[in-house]
């Protein structure tokens, strides 16, 4: 446990799609190199202004660049002190769960426990065939792959056979998760009750991206997730771990914000040339106006969804130039988030858990007892015969993790 828990009840941060979009006001499209460097600058700036999280998406086609999120996040973690690095989302459908287990365990170690991840199915159809999968199997893939991922992080030796991946006999995913505690997992979904069910079943977090659709859609999903969380015995509905997306563009005077953002809205890849910005801001949580308007809108989120743990904002999309994005992050970190932290702390029941951190998970797993630090035995070339591949520290009684090494 090298990090300190400075984040507390709520985590605020950014999530980026990694789109490389022409600035509609200048006609300039950044190069991949420029946009990648800009994203690194944005992530570092998030920490500078007091934000807690930076998350990035995963894409495998232009005009996006983020094909290898853990590479990017490892760099960002190395350049920051407190920032939690995460994804939005990691494709649980088309990635090999073994590689996800390995990549994020390494990220956990190199970041000193400042890494978690959000799983999603992805929204780009051709990614499935590019990775040898069938989009019609999207949900079964998400369910089976996560079942394996969950196991790989919790059991030192995994025997496994499923429908979609070659079987594993005596497989050990290395390195073992930092301190024997898997990275916190958020399950992201915009419409699928089975994914809310999955998050509840495992006692994981649920993230509603909350930016494309009216709040009512996400309300139903989050309510379902909270109910099912209780159904599976993880605690009362209010103890479930909820994250929300959001979207804002701010200037001191709201009319300036509206005028400046409109060309970006009108030409945005996702909603451009569709509903008017006025309609869209009414229908979705996109807020274009003064910092106070953003505060009012987002302070009201818990009335819709209950007290929650993580709020991420999409700030760097649709061709907004780096300078503008950094100004937006200054406003977010300087004026909006400090007020939101106070507002959302008011009347927050003590039973609502704090936002998940590595330190919190370690504490939950071990209490004040010794933390598992596995040391491998000399390589004997197989895991099928013999006992544990690790010289294990004794597993404390009643520990939720690390039992695999004891068998």
């Amino acid at each position, binding site marked *: 446990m090298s990090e300190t828990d400075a984040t507390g009840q709520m985590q605020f941060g950014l999530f980026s799609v990694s789109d490389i979009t022409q600035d509609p006001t200048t006609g300039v499209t950044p190069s991949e190199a420029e946009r990648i460097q800009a994203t690194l600058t944005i992530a570092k700036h998030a920490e500078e202004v007091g934000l807690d999280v930076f998350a990035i998406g995963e894409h495998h086609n232009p005009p996006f660049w983020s094909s290898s999120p853990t590479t990017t996040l490892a760099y960002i973690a190395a350049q920051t002190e407190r920032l939690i690095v995460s994804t939005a989302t990691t494709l649980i459908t088309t990635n090999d769960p073994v590689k996800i287990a390995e990549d994020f365990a390494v990220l956990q170690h190199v970041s000193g426990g400042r890494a978690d991840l959000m799983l999603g199915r992805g929204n780009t159809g051709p990614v499935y065939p590019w990775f040898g999968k069938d989009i019609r199997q999207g949900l*079964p893939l998400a*369910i*089976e792959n996560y*079942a*394996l991922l969950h196991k790989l992080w919790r059991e030192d030796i995994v025997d*496994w*056979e*499923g*429908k979609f991946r070659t*079987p594993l006999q005596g497989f050990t995913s290395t390195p073992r998760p930092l301190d024997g505690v898997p990275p916190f997992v958020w399950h992201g979904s915009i419409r699928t*009750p*089975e994914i809310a*069910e*999955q998050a*509840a*079943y495992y006692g994981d977090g649920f993230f509603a991206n909350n930016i*494309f*659709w*009216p709040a009512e*859609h996400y309300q*139903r*999903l989050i309510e*379902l997730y909270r109910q*099912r969380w209780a159904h*599976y015995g993880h605690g009362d509905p209010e103890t479930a771990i909820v994250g929300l997306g959001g979207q804002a563009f701010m200037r001191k005077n709201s009319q300036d914000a509206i005028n400046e953002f409109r060309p970006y809205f009108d030409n945005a890849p*996702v*909603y*451009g*040339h*569709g*509903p008017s910005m006025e*309609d*869209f801001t009414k*229908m979705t949580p996109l807020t274009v106006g003064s910092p106070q308007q953003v505060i009012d809108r987002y302070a009201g989120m818990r009335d819709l969804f209950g007290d929650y743990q993580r709020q991420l904002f999409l700030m760097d999309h649709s061709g907004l130039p780096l300078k503008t994005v950094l100004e937006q992050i200054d406003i977010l970190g300087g004026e909006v988030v400090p007020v939101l932290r106070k507002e959302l702390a008011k009347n927050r029941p003590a039973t609502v858990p704090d936002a998940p951190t590595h330190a919190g998970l370690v504490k939950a797993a071990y209490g004040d007892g010794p933390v598992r630090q596995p040391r491998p035995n000399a390589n004997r070339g197989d895991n099928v015969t013999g006992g544990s591949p690790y010289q294990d520290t004794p597993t404390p009684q009643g520990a939720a993790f690390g039992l695999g090494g004891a068998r």
Partner: protein
Amino acid sequence: MSAARRVAVVAAGLSTPSSTRMLADRLSAAVVKHLDERGITASVDTFELRDVAHDITNNMLTGFAGAELESMINTVVSADALIVVTPIFSTSYSGMFKSFIDVLDKDSLIGKPVLIGATAGTPRHSLAIDYAIRPLFAYLHADTVSTGVFAASDDWGSGGDQVATLGDRIEKGAAELADAVARRDPATSSDPFDPANYLHGGSSFDHLLGGFAGD
């Protein structure tokens, strides 16, 4: 007297008033009458796609339905029966009609009793019901009644078919739809957020996991 039923009517006419709406109203009135004769009380919700045309386009672009369109879609897919009437443009249903169908969940009309109506300037387009519209509802696994009601401009005056009149055709289609409704239990809402529905009868995620994870 059995439980009250709901009939949804979708009319894709462009002008106001349109002959498409006129046909839709004639069909829905006839269906209510035939249901009443079978001891079934029915209410009717009639929608003109023109009223939500922008919302339909926005739905295609953004992936979600605005409030008015969403409420309409919910009313349509939860009805006991559906009457659809579209003008025939360029040998087929209108683009707006197809766009509306395209924003519906593809499973949302499975088993739904549907009566098809269509309008056009001349009777030479009448087979469009059978070569264009009926296959669309077959794809959606709707339960379309065998009679489709086509009205050409002449049908509204003296130049229509004097043997099988528009009125006769409306009665025939309406009776078939009323029979289809009467054969069924009242529609129950299949809330997609009800675990009993998405877990396919199981009570736990284990039920989904069981099929996929091989411990």
